[in-house]
Structures are given as C-alpha cells and as structure tokens.
C-alpha cells in the first residue's frame, strides 16, 4: 500500500464541509464588548489611550461589506464599534471586537489594525473569551501570530493559508480567522467613507 501526503477525496470533502460550516457559523456572530482595553493596549501598543467611535451600517455599506465577505452580516449588526488608539495625538492603530461561534460556544476576538500602503493590515489578534478545548493552542503565538500583517484580501481559509491552532480545532480556528477577515473588511469599508 502506497501512502502519500495527500488526503483522500472523501476526507477532503469532509474537511471542506467542516470549514464551510464553520465559516457560516462564524459569520453568524455579532459584535461584542471590549473586555480588557487597558491590558490589550499595553500588550499590543505598549502605551496609549483610546476612544470609542460608533458607525451605523447603512444599506449601501451593508451591501458592499456582504459582497466582499461573501456572506451576510448578522441581523443585529446594525452598528459597528471602533476603538482608535492614540499615543499622544498620533493614531497608532484601531481596535475592533467580534463575537463569533466556535465549536463549543462563542469566541470573542480582539483585532488591532493599522493602515498601510496596500490597505488595512492586522497588527495583532487576541482572544478575550472562548470555551474551546484547544484554548491554549488557540491563544498561542503560533496560531494568532500568523494573522499579523495580513490584509482583507489575503487567504483566511483554514488549511489553505491559515494553519489550524491544533488538530481537531479547525472549526474554532476558522471562526477566529473569519472574524479577523470580517473586521478588516468592515474597517476598510468605513475608512473608505471618510
């Protein structure tokens, strides 16, 4: 019997199905509160202060966001919250939060983004709440670090551009990945209106 590195068609089908289900499930999540702003700012930016900006989702904005994402926003996502972080008078980044469905309950993600020549990119991703079995792996630098520097149009599919946090944690990993991409798209859409 010859074995290769490639998985069988049936397992690939099963895997793709799981990722699709996870992506659809993650897309159902809503925005959430920022639970530990001071700790997150210290970890991401060192120092800084932040303010809260509320932005309403108009029909045209919603259509643009959904077209880029490829799935619909939650019915309760009628407003987005942005937390621009300042060091002195200088904007050093913007933080956003998202609650999405993981494998074992909700996963709340904190994403810090900065503007670059090619658009918004991820500065840092942190997880503020989850009840996943692979809790440590999901919060590890090995998993979350791979999002650093990514833009909205980069690959966000687990197994094709994003490595799962741990074997068996594909659904949770995809939930985090989808949340990151969603927040980047939302950020760019609102930035575009300014």
């Amino acid at each position: 019997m010859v074995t290769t590195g490639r998985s069988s068609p049936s397992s690939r089908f099963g895997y793709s199905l799981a990722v699709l289900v996870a992506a659809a499930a993650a897309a159902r999540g809503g925005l959430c509160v920022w639970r530990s702003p001071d700790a997150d700012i210290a970890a991401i930016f060192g120092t800084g202060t932040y303010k809260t900006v509320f932005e309403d989702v108009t029909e045209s904005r919603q259509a643009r966001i959904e077209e880029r994402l490829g799935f619909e926003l939650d019915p309760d996502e009628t407003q987005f919250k942005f937390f621009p972080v300042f060091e002195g008078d200088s904007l050093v980044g913007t933080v956003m939060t998202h609650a999405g469905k993981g494998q074992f309950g909700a996963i709340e993600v904190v994403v810090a983004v900065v503007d670059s020549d090619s658009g918004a990119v991820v500065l840092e991703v942190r997880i503020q709440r989850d009840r996943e079995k692979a809790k440590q792996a999901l919060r590890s630098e090995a998993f979350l670090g791979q999002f650093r520097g990514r833009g909205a149009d980069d690959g966000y599919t687990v197994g094709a551009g994003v490595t799962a946090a741990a074997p068996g944690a594909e659904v949770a990993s995809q939930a985090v990945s989808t949340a990151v991409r969603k927040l980047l798209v939302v950020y760019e859409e609102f930035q575009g209106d300014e």
Partner: protein
Amino acid sequence: MSFFRFALKNLFAHRTRTALTLVSMTVAVAVLFTLLSFNRGYERGLKSQLQAMGIHMLVVPVGCPYEAASLIIKGGKMPGYLPASALDKVREMDEVAVAAPSYMGGIVRPEEGRTDIYLGIDSATLALKNWWKLRGRWFEKPNDMILGYDVTLVELSHVGDQIYLPELDMTFDVVGELEPTGTEDDGFFYVPLATAQEMFYRLEKEQAGADSGTAAPARGQDRLTAISIRLRNPDDAPIVTPKLGEIKGAEVITMGELLGTMMSLMGSAKALLLSIVTIIIVISALGVLNTVLMSVFERTREIGVMRATGASQVHVFGLVWLETLMLSLLGGAGGLGLAVVGARAIEGVVKRFLPLAPRGSVVALEPAAFLIVLGFVLGIGLVAGFYPALRAARARPIEALRSE
C-alpha cells in the same frame, strides 16, 4: 349669568395662565392615579405570576437564602445542602402533587466578568414548569444540556451544538433550548440532576485536594440545593409547612413569604416615587393658589363693583372658591384621562424604576383609586382656593373701587 358660567368666564379670561395651571394639575393627577393603580396591579401581578409558576413552596437548606445565592454566583462553597433523603420525605406527603429537586452551582469566569450557573434538574421540573416551551428534547444522556434563552444568545449555541466545560474537561450536547420565559430561567445551563451533583462534587473535591486543610465533600448524589413543591391544594400550605420543617437541615419558604419579601424590596423604590409625587402635588397646589390669587388681585375693582351692587361676602367667597374647584376638577379630569390613555407608557417608565416587576400589565385601573384621586383633586381645590376666596370676600367695597 349663573355662578358657574361667571366662574368659567373668569378662568377663560387668562387662558395661558389657566392652561399652564391645568397642565401641572393634569400631570400630578395622572402620576398619582397611575401610582395608586400600579400599587394594586403590581401586587396582583406578582401574585398571579407566583401562582402561574405552579410552585407553592420551596424547601432549601437552613441558612440565609440570599447568602446562598451570593455564594453560588461567586462560585463559593455552599454552607449546607439538603440531604437527598429529604426528597423522599417530601414525596411521601399526600398533600404534595409534584416535588422537583434541583442542584444549583456556579462556575466563575472572572476574565469574562460573569458566572455560568448550572442547574441540575430532573423530569419533575418539567411537570412543575409546564409553561416552559422547549425546542429540542429533554435529557436522555448524562452529558445532555438544555440552554436558557439568554445563554443561547451569549454562547451563540443552539440545539445540535456542543458546550465544553474546561474546568472539568466535560463536553455537553445541547439537546434543547428554552424559548424566552422572561424569568431567571433564561440564564441557566440545565443539566441532568445527577450530572450537576457529580460536577460540583468533583470541583469541590479538587478544591479540597488543593487545600489540604479542607475536608473532602460528601458524595454529590447526597446533596440538593432546593426542592420546589406544588401542592394538590394550595390551601394546604399551613398543614404542610410544619411537616416540612421537621426535615433535618431544611427550611421552608412559602410563596406568601416570597411575595412579602418582594413587596418589601419594592417598598423603598415606591417610597421614593411617592416622595416625588408629593412634591409634584405640592407644586401643582401652589400653582393653583397662585393662579387664583393673581386673578383675585387683578379683579379687585370688579369685586368692589360686585359688593357695591349687592353681592354678599358669601357670594364673592363662593365665586372664587368655585373657580378654584373648577380648575382642580378640570385638571383632575385631564389627569385621569391621561392616565387611562397613557397607562401603558407611564407603566413602562414606572416599571423601569421598580425591582422585580412581574410580566404583563401591572397597572390596575380601579374605582377605589379613582375615588382617592377625586378626593385629592377636591382637597387641592378647597385648600388652595380658601385663602384667595377669603381675601376676595373680605375686600371692602370702597377700597376695592378705588384700586387701579
């Protein structure tokens, strides 16, 4: 011209002033009537909600139930439990229709600022809470879980999903979810009774292991945190209470006591609202007095003419007093109308300030409240109008005619 039409004409002579006074009276009367109606309606609503719960009595471990609730929320160790044998004793009583045991425990998540509260129940709870609408199915396996409505929103989880409990490395299958009940039931993770007993037994055991000075807990299956009881006849509560009190380590809470506690909790909030209403009433009474008194001052010459042409002091007193009464009654009628029409809106505002508000309408528009408000309106009219009327009646015709 009749006294009545004359008084009405005087009121309409200063429409803006009269209108403003009427508005203040209307608001005061509307708030007073709503509060009076609310008080009765609130008590009735609480009673009917408690009756609808189908629970007539609760058997809990001896001790302060508030302290126990606080400990559960903080994830602390309960000072005492009901022995499982208590359930058998309760079920042996002929008066008891349903006895539903439960075990409640909390797992604190400080980083999330919340506590997951697990409630272990058996099928008797379903018989007791027959108003529950369950999507999915009842427990069949030890790791089945039913989510309260609020939990489904927080965890974004529904029937078919799984919930993982990292503290005990346990995975639950969500087999059911409750439709909104509007009660604390919405906030629980429901698991089979034996599962909850075992979960918190293990947690305590681990805690006791970590702290060598603490004794190992009793077996989980031996412990309950409450038994909810429905009687065949609610009137049997006085017969059953002493029998339940004989169970060692048990304390009985009747729904009547619970209602009393809720009403006393509401008392302080109600006192605050009544204080505010009293201030509004005093201000509106002063407004009426001011309006009529100014009217008397402005009509000094007119009053002098009336007196000079034969009107007695009683006539003048009666005229001014009638004006005040009409002002009060018009404001009262407006206030009652406003209260009836806007009862729902006012109720929403009032409910926001009162704790433990029952579901549904808590405003009962009753004749007794109507009569009290009518008496209050007449009282304001009589008191506020007395001084201006007296002053007008005592005016000497010669001096009054001389005035500008």
